[in-house]
């Protein structure tokens, strides 16, 4: 394992020191609870939107804290969802009387810890909490026999859009409704060229031969659903886009993200984007907004994912609203 770290057991702690050092103009860090918060407290009466999960997906979630997006992000250990105490601390810190929306990715651990935190928040502080569970990963089939679809790339789009809705002054129910719309109309699919190495584990989670890829990976370095020969970027684009289109009819306008998993350079990602766009357009999908880059990663994994979200006027208005976070910024 070769990493730029001080201590494999203290990666999250040390990284949060850097986040605080770099972005003190916009965020502050509660080191005890490993929560990244906006520098200014939540505006009275504004719904607070928080998210969290295991670390190792940066910029998600901590990089999306700031005006127009999250009010706080709760940082678990690498690939391990945070504890109810941490989530509670974030929830009570950001509540400004209008309630708190929890953005939860659909993993057993995340679900349980956020649920316990919401129970605690309700019992101990009376903060009104609503939760949206993101489960956009079409790689997980047969959800009757699984923990359900994973939450992956759509989380980035959802955090932007719901963050804007809250900033605009919508109430908790309205924010939740927007969030549910995003969940209902967005899908993702990912693939990996290489594994990543969890610092505390010290070796790669899986091994892939030259010429092999894992199709249908999540974002925790876990192996995918299938191991296949690696084809061209055009073939990979089809392997990611087709299952998305098979799952939901996306004809019409869409917001599309082509995301790198942390170890794939932009020069490659743009090649994939060109193929994804051509394929989607040939199927009647018009990309009206896009993101191309490292937004939700698995440490240093090489690979990419595609997320497609149906766009309507309301979502586009929320998408275009100003955002000022370390990881996503425009209009401000």
């Amino acid at each position, binding site marked *: 394992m070769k990493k730029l770290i001080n201590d494999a057991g203290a990666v999250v702690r040390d990284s949060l020191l850097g986040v605080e050092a770099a972005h003190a103009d916009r965020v502050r860090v509660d080191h005890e609870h490993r929560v990244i918060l906006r520098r200014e407290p939540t505006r009275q009466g504004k719904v607070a939107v928080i998210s969290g999960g*295991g670390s190792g997906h940066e910029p998600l979630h901590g990089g999306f804290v700031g005006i127009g997006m999250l009010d706080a992000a709760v940082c*678990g*250990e*690498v*690939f*391990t*969802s*945070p*504890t*109810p*105490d*941490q989530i509670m601390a974030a929830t009570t810190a950001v509540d400004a009387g209008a309630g708190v929306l929890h953005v939860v990715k659909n*993993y*057993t*651990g995340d679900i*349980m*810890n956020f649920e*316990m935190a919401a129970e605690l928040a309700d019992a101990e502080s009376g903060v009104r909490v609503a939760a949206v569970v993101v489960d956009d990963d079409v*790689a*997980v*089939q*047969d959800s009757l*026999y*699984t*923990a359900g679809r*994973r939450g992956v790339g759509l989380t980035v789009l959802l955090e932007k859009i719901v963050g804007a809705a809250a900033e605009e002054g919508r109430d908790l129910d309205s924010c939740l409704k927007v969030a549910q719309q995003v969940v209902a109309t967005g899908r993702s699919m990912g693939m990996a060229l290489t594994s990543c190495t*969890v610092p*505390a*584990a010290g*070796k790669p*989670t*899986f091994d892939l031969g030259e010429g092999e890829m894992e199709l*249908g990976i*999540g974002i*925790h*370095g*876990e*192996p995918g*659903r299938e191991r296949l020969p690696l084809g061209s970027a055009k073939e990979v684009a089809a392997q990611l886009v087709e299952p998305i289109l098979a799952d939901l009819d996306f004809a019409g306008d869409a917001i599309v993200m082509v995301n790198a998993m942390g170890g794939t350079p932009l020069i490659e990602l743009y090649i994939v984007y060109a193929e994804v766009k051509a394929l989607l357009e040939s199927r009647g999908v018009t990309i009206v907004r896009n993101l191309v880059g490292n937004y939700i990663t698995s440490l240093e994994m090489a690979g990419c994912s595609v997320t497609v979200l149906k766009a309507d006027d309301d979502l586009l208005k929320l998408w275009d609203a100003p955002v000022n976070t370390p990881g996503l910024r425009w209009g401000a």
Partner: protein
Amino acid sequence: MTDTAAVATWLADFAALVHENANLLTDLDRQIGDADHGSNMERGMTAVAALDPGQYPEPAALLKAAGMTLVSTVGGASGPLFGTFFLRLATAATGPDMSPAEFAAGLEAGLAGVVARGKASEGDKTMIDSLAPAVRACQEAIAGGDSLADALHKAAEAAAAGRDATVPLIARKGRASYLGERSRGVQDPGATSVALLIESAARTLH
């Protein structure tokens, strides 16, 4: 006697066992999960082992503290599940010394808590596949008049057998479920931890 000291001995022994097996646990999780189960259990049990038993005059209080500590230090799936297990086990303890029947009932309550929290059934390839048979074996043995020590030895055997039986299963809950068919052939990490937990109980509680 299952008093605070005995519970403390159990917890310390389990913590040591988790420490010894942390690489194994992470390695199993690497194959069908996300390579953190050993670190998760170790982080949690290190914190539990650091609790001062002197502060908890009765087993219920120490077990509750252990459960809270797991909930608040582990995260992931195992934090709430192991945490809930100990919190529920604590509810069965009354007074300074848990009776064998109380302990067996506590295990049963712990199992029920894990099922309620995680919504998995036996055969889903989770920790329940070793916990459920262990709880049944313990209950039967106590009902049949065994000592706690004998009952826990039978429970440990059942837990180990349940753990081994996870190998050929396809996972239907937790991260391993995403692998579908590919989850076959690997022993479930959580079931492995549970087997260690009951093995540790068998050698420390009498």
